């Protein structure tokens, strides 16, 4: 217990933790600001009037053109239309319609985006939870990796020879920190985005069904963030260096997935190549359900595979457990210096 508290203290006093915290909150504020300035509940009177004026002008131009058979010849700006065989072939009114808008309305000249919290807000919240999970994963990996490469780990083991206790305390501290960070970021994001929607957009109706669905998805995302933290810690334990753990994570997310997409296009024997991609399972886990489509190349008949959160949870959980078990075994058996 004292070891766990010391670990928490150690990570909390770390400069990188502060940096990542600032980064996360800053990112959230940026997203909120973007939503704030892009979203509006509707155009103002002046905007509407200006747009109506532009629509009226366009309509007047078409009317002028249609009324005057020699409109193109007389206007030096459009004389090329008169010479063009393509436009020359068609009736005059049709040429006018090609050149100018017919029946323009104010809406054609004004763009209104309304931030819909009950629909889009959920995706932003999920995104916030995933990014917080990624940061927590890197933080845990670098905390353990830095300790290994500096000799601090061996020194700590001289104080606490029970390696399983040390590993448990480190993991528990990283998970506690991740849980606190995810919950705090979600609460903050909810408050900021809801406020944005209330003032500059549409909050929609947050009824019991919405809450149930949203909390389920966010809860699963938070669990995934914890799993990512475990994998980050395990990689640092296995690699014994921050750079190795970080390299494996980034390497997989880039090159690994690229290889998967090559397999997808190159190998026909796999019926659902999407199953090879981690993102498919992550999507199924967060959304709770994912349908993979398949068209038989011979008969052309469709087939489908439904992945539920349970399937995805088993697969992702197994991956996490494999890493955790390898790290535990390696820490228990390998020389620490």
């Amino acid at each position, binding site marked *: 217990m004292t*070891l766990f508290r010391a670990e928490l*203290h150690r990570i909390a006093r770390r400069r990188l933790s502060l940096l990542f915290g600032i980064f996360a909150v800053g990112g959230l504020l940026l997203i909120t600001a973007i939503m704030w300035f892009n979203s509006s509940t509707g155009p103002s009177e002046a905007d509407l009037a200006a747009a109506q004026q532009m629509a009226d002008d366009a309509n007047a131009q078409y009317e002028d053109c249609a009324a005057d058979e020699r409109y193109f010849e007389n206007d030096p700006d459009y004389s090329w239309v008169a010479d063009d065989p393509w436009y020359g072939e068609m009736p005059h009114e049709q040429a006018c319609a090609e050149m100018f808008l017919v029946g323009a309305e104010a809406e054609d000249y004004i763009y209104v985006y309304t931030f819909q919290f009950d629909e889009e807000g959920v995706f932003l919240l999920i995104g916030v939870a995933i990014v917080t999970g990624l940061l927590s994963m890197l933080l845990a990996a670098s905390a353990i990796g830095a300790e290994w490469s500096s000799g601090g780990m061996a020194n700590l083991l001289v104080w606490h020879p029970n390696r399983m206790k040390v590993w448990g305390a480190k993991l528990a501290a990283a998970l506690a920190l991740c849980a606190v960070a995810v919950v705090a970021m979600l609460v903050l994001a909810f408050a900021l985005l809801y406020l944005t929607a209330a003032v500059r957009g549409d909050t929609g109706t947050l009824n019991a069904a919405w809450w149930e669905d949203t909390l389920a998805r966010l809860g699963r995302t938070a669990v995934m963030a914890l799993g990512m933290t475990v994998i980050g810690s395990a990689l640092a334990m296995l690699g014994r260096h921050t750079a190795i753990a970080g390299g494996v994570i980034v390497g997989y997310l880039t090159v690994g997935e690229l290889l998967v997409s090559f397999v997808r296009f190159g190998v026909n024997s796999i019926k659902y190549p999407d199953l090879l991609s981690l993102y498919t399972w992550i999507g199924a886990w967060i959304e709770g359900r994912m349908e993979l489509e398949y068209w038989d190349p011979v008969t052309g008949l469709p087939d489908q595979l439904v992945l539920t959160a349970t399937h995805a949870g088993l697969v992702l959980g197994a991956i996490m457990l494999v890493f955790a078990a390898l790290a535990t075994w390696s820490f228990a058996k390998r*020389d620490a210096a």
Partner: protein
Amino acid sequence: MPPVIEISGLRKTYRKLLRQPHNALDGLDMEVAAGQVHGFLGPNGSGKTTTLRALLGLIGTDGGAMRVFGEEVPRRLPQVIGRIGAVVESPQFFKHFSGRLTLQVLAESAGIASARVDEVLEQVGLRDQAKQSVKGYSLGMRQRLAVAQALLKRPELLVLDEPANGLDPAGIHHMRELLQWLAHEQGVTVLVSSHLLSEVQQLCDSMTIVSRGRRIVDGKVADIIAGHSGSQLSVRFADAGEIGRAMEVLASAGDGVSVAAERERLVVTGAPEAAWVTRTLADAGLYLSELTTETKNLESVFLELTGTAPQAGQPVQVGQAVPAPPVGASAETATGGEQ
């Protein structure tokens, strides 16, 4: 009182893929008695650090037994670790942590009051640098921090891997006083590995010398030096022609005395004392002109024992020490030292 540390037949083999396995420890024995400063000497790569790491459970071993405070380690290490303070690796957690914060986190992890942190920082002379980040510490300051960390638990056994490393003369002097005070006033048992022979000679009460992962000799420092010096006497005569007769006289007069002629002088080994040589020669009507005892310091004893004395300006390569002498020879010196 039983020894605080008992190590017998310790083996450690480093195996690397595609490489020949390397025996870093090859049946090492060591005993450290309570309340003493015990020096641990050996050439580079002779397995000192490896031994200390094994003792502290940082690395696994391939054979042998170790006991600390009578408890089998590493199995029972968690029970005795509270009584052991050690410096084998750098204690830093993160480079930007201050010296004090580094120690505080360690103290917190073991439930030690943080007032003790300032005490040990004072003790190793880091009071004024305590708030500075470890990143900016010099080699000697890091070493002091490491020692402070080891003292934090008020240990009954201190294990230090080259504590003098990087210390300035004042720091070495201070470290020596501190360790001797701990051992002789506080009853702490101190085990230090070192290369600085003069340092060991001044600091340690007893020592173990290892080479190639085996013990060569152990015992009281003074006894070991005495056991290897004074045993050789150099005798000269005004008339070099008398050397031949003197050889016969000395060789026939004493048991176990061996005499060798070396240019203008006689080298006598195994004589009971210098006076015996003078008397024996005088009785035979031979008067020597010069008699010197070849006094040795720890350095020459060390070089002789570990076989790392440089030959004709050739650099000595790490790992080229002579193989350890047979166990009988080492045991003889060992017991000789303790009597």
